[in-house]
């Protein structure tokens, strides 16, 4: 065989191998690209605790991962669901059908999360819910393709209630926002209070967008409880906390916010919010690892990350890791891989993904510092207790998810 022919054969052979290699890898990734959709509330009630910050977090995760997985590029797209289940569902449909999105995340707002998780499951794509609170996602409405990543009403209710009762706060009065979310939060927390040996003295319900919450806090004060539980969120919890501060309640009583985020405390200011106790899934100043992420996030977002922001980063990173280790972006395989993996990182300590789709991890009971105790910007919390992953969430045995084998 002459030299030219030999060289040509080798060259062709190499090219074929390279081509086969190149062709084979993207073939494992559907459509040659891994697309992650961040569907959040960009303009409304939750836009500060999630919103654009979540998009930044997701992009950071993708960039840190290298921008590609299994030889295919990773893209992040985002849209605003406007706290409207129909808008969110439509956008998700569009993403799943025409834009070939492989994983949808953030989903702050339980109604949107519930709708989208069903749509994603129907198309066998992943919905990693970070922002929504409803426990239905891992109970009645669980699917094989839904992961509930950061927190839920059970974790918040239990963590806060049990720990406070144990510390002596055994008589409670609730200020509840009068619709499904508030009522279920109140119910879960009341159950946790009585289960820990405490007593519920009463409650008052206020309409959504309460404005001036003073009348309701007055009623709470009149019952002389040791703890005032605020079963509301967003603007309503902010205004309730203001009213509590106005009445000087934070001194003599424990004001327990049941769904409070770092950005709420930031917008209230320590003068008003100090003394409040609640459960959070992430605090930026907890240790070196959390601080490292937070400082980088702050450089891009000009605010410290909330549990939702950190959760989106962690979820995206773990998702990409799982895709790489599973060798495919097919949702079923990825979920199975995530169940086998150790998902622990700076956000999720002692983390594990259960069969009902619930990611369990350590949660933290925090108390808001007094202004004098705060040494630098965003130095807001004192960690009072770590609620271990095994205790923080609803036990698997009590799950009403049909996928859980009994």
């Amino acid at each position, binding site marked *: 065989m002459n030299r030219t022919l030999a060289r040509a054969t080798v060259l062709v052979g190499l090219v074929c191998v390279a081509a086969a290699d190149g062709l084979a890898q993207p073939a494992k990734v559907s459509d040659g690209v891994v697309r992650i959709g961040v569907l959040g509330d960009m303009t409304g009630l939750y836009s500060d605790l999630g919103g654009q910050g979540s998009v930044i977090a997701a992009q950071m995760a993708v960039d840190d991962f290298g921008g590609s997985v299994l030889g295919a590029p990773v893209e992040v797209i*985002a849209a605003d669901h406007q706290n409207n289940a129909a808008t969110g569902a*439509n956008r998700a449909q569009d993403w799943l059908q025409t834009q070939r999105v492989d994983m949808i995340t953030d989903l702050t707002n339980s109604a949107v999360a519930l709708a989208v998780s*069903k749509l994603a499951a129907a198309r066998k794509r992943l919905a990693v819910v970070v922002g929504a609170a409803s426990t239905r996602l891992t109970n009645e409405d669980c699917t094989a393709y839904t992961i509930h990543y950061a927190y839920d009403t059970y974790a918040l209710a239990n963590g806060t209630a049990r720990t406070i009762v144990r510390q002596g706060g055994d008589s409670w009065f609730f200020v509840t926002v009068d619709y499904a979310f508030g009522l279920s939060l109140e119910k879960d927390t009341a159950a946790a209070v009585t289960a820990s040996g405490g007593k519920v003295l009463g409650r008052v319900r206020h309409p959504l967008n309460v404005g001036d919450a003073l009348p309701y806090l007055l009623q709470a004060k009149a019952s002389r409880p040791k703890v005032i539980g605020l079963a509301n969120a967003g603007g309503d919890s902010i205004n309730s906390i203001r009213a509590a501060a106005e009445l000087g309640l934070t001194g003599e009583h424990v004001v327990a916010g049941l769904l409070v985020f770092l950005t709420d405390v930031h917008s209230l200011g320590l003068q008003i919010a100090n003394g409040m106790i609640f459960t959070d899934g992430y605090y930026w100043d907890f240790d070196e690892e959390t601080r490292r992420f937070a400082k980088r996030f702050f450089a891009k977002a000009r605010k410290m990350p909330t549990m939702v922001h950190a959760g989106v980063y962690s979820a995206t990173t773990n998702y990409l890791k799982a895709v790489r280790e599973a060798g495919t972006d097919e949702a079923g395989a990825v979920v199975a891989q995530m169940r086998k993996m150790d998902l622990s990182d700076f956000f999720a300590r002692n983390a594990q993904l259960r069969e009902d789709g619930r990611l369990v991890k350590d949660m933290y009971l925090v108390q808001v510092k007094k202004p004098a105790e705060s040494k630098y910007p965003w130095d807001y919390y004192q960690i009072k207790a770590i609620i271990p992953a095994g205790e923080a969430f609803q036990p698997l045995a009590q799950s009403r998810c049909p996928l859980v084998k009994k």
Partner: protein
Amino acid sequence: MNNTQKVFIALGVLGLAGPLLKDIVYPVFLMNVLCFALFACAFNLLLGFTGLLSFGHAAYFGFAAYVTGHACKEWGLTPELGVLAGTLVAAGLGFVIGSLAIRRAGIYLAMITLAMSQLVFFVCLQAKFTGGEDGIQGIPRGKFLGLVDLTDNVSLYYFVFGVFVLGFALIYRTIHSPFGQILKSIRENEPRAISLGYDADKFKLVAFVLSAALSGMAGSTKSLVNQLASLADVHWHMSGEVVLMTLLGGMGTVFGPIVGALTVKGLEHYLAEQGSWVTIVTGAIFVVCVLAFRRGIVGELAALFKR
């Protein structure tokens, strides 16, 4: 063939071809546009042709959506019966609110309808069957007449298109009938209409009920398209949105509301990532329309052609 007939045929062809464009335009988006177009046309019947500004039309649109959602999900009604149920309830609601509102005129009427629709909003917030903040989710699209499965987007599209054509045809006939002429005369000069012997209040009420019923039909159909009925559908922002669509498209024109609905929904869809800019742009369009563009897109175009 006059201009109107040409427009009809053009629209008809475009409408029928809808699903074929599915790589350019997302079919669910088109279906939503059709529902809103019907809503705007029904609203225009009251505003453009009878001269009554109702600022609470979301009540009929949204409440019918809830009724249909409940009927199809809990009672298992087939889609056409579900839409019928929603339409009838909306008509009833229109009768009640209309009777109250007709007692006054102009701004007062607008304020009364606004406040009444707020009552409907709060009922929807509190009532068990509406699911409060979550709304009614997972509304089944069902089988049309028990035969054609509407889960497929293409079949559903033709169902929605059919509903739209039905509603639009009804409105068109109404506008061009003697009844419609009387409505226009009431809009132009009510005392004179009364002096000619017409019971203006009765005519206004009928127009109100008709407008409410067809708005309900639009809302019912939308709930099947999105398989959701939520509080956003009964919020006063929705009432404002339909006013914008009608104003932008052209009050008192036949095709204006359709154009208005397409424009507003298109803007919302493509600006969705821009956050608050959607609100700002919507507001700016309102302002510009009122100041300089009162005839709306179709109105201005018609004026151009006449020259």
